[in-house]
């Protein structure tokens, strides 16, 4: 079946401001330990949002709930208006994910990895191959299509993982600390590439990180600390409001001003 022959559903074609990701009142605990408390924020389409927090802030827990690796105990999460718990197929088919750990199958070639991913979304045959080719071209990795994933550098693997996450044309791209373990050049390259994607493809991006220098003034910034959202604003505005010199300074002031019970 060709793409053109597929039935179109107008719900997502409207210009209604349905956010790419909507998180409402999410709370989650691991036995006695509260990992997330009343977390709420949106990621609009065409926005680059950074979820900034120290290690252990709850970023990966939130990431796991959004990707439905397990279910939230309280609150709701919607991808383009589709509730992750009640409409998982609709929500997950609009979601592209890059996990913190490397998830390429090292024994398979780049193309085989992409085709496997396509099949997990019910896309096969010529359509899957065409999408894989197109995605590789867009990420400038076409010449590595038949290389084993094992021989790629860390930066190239990340690029392929991003290509894979984009293959089924999601509306929301989640990246969990995607630059961990990469050198400075590779980090910069990946970050620039994803920012371009936001501009060119109008997708929403949620980029989780603990690296402050990855935040730019125009980004939507959400600061997560000990499972709670302490601030959400355009990064430049937050810096001005906090009276800081830069995002790092603003982050420190927000953390220092946090209620002391959060540190308990």
């Amino acid at each position, binding site marked *: 079946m060709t793409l053109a022959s597929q039935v*179109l559903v107008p719900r997502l074609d409207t210009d209604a401001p349905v956010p790419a990701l909507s998180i409402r009142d999410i709370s989650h605990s691991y036995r006695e330990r509260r990992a997330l408390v009343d977390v709420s924020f949106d990621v609009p389409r065409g926005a680059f949002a950074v979820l900034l927090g120290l290690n252990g802030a709850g970023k990966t827990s939130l990431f796991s709930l959004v990707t439905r690796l397990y279910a939230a105990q309280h609150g709701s999460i919607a991808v383009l208006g589709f509730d992750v718990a009640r409409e*998982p197929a609709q*929500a997950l088919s609009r979601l592209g994910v890059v996990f913190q750990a490397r998830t390429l199958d090292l*024994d398979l070639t780049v193309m085989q990895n992409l085709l496997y991913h396509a099949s*997990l979304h*019910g*896309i096969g045959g010529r359509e899957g191959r065409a999408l894989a080719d197109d995605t590789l071209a867009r990420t400038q990795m076409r010449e590595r299509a038949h290389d084993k994933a094992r021989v790629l550098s860390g930066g190239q693997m990340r690029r392929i993982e991003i290509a894979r996450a984009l293959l089924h*044309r999601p*509306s929301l791209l989640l990246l969990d600390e995607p630059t961990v373990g990469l050198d400075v050049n590779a980090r910069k390259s990946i970050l620039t590439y994803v920012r371009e994607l936001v501009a060119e493809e*109008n997708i929403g991006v949620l980029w989780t990180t603990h690296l402050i220098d990855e935040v730019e003034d125009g980004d939507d910034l959400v600061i997560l600390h000990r499972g709670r959202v302490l601030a959400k604003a355009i990064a430049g505005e937050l810096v001005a409001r906090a009276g800081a010199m830069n995002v790092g300074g603003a982050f420190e002031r927000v953390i220092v001003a946090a209620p002391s019970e959060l540190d308990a």
Partner: protein
Amino acid sequence: MTSSAVTKSGAPARTHFGLHQYAICMAGIVWREGLRFLHQRERFISALVRPLVWLFIFAAGFRQVLGVSIIPPYETYVLYEVYITPGLIAMIQLFNGMQSSLSMVYDREMGNMRTLLVSPMPRWFLLSSKLIAGTAVSLLQVYAYLVIAYFWEIEPPTPWGYLTVLPALILVGLMLGSLGLLLSSLIKQLENFAGVMNFVIFPMFFASSALYPLWRVQESSPWLYYVCQANPFTHAVELIRFAFYQQLNVRALAIVLACGIVFMAGAILAYNPAIGLSLRRAG
């Protein structure tokens, strides 16, 4: 019917999945498992060497010691090698089922498992596809073993036996694979897999009718006989033994089916996001 929505970026995000998409997804999972199997030649060789060592050394050595009287489905006295072949076939499938669970734990630790579980397909379907893929691999191993065994003059009474044993092999593969899936959800780390060898594989294999007929077990130890009867692996072996001789052991079939359903239901529950047992443990 399949439908899809086109996003502003021209995105073909699907809203519903039809049979065709399910078939593509399952084929993709089986294809990947097959590729991994081909890349791991040592896995194939060790899967063959293990039962062949039992056949060529253990069975040959014990041929004179362990007599097997005429019991169904056999109508004449059979060599000990012939008797233990169904048990060795089931052993191949047992090890393969556990190997699959090992690879699930490995995938979970390495993160590959997450790419599978964030697929929009239902989780029960993804796990079932994984199970079918593992069973298909076990069939390759079993028939490779049967080819070698043929040259050792171990064969069914008629060549049809190779065909009639196939449904039994599929059912046993699914049952043992489901057990592997369930175990993979309970194992925290790869290192704990040694415990599976000690507490699952060896007891299941030895406390069964794989190596000796149950009437002999009953003579020597009545309680062990009941343990063997309660062991689903015993019934897996008997299902294969009868099917190889073009006969159906209804009791074995019922028990293998029931155990397969229970194990699979347990695995689906354990991988349910609302319970999230395995993933929560994995962090």
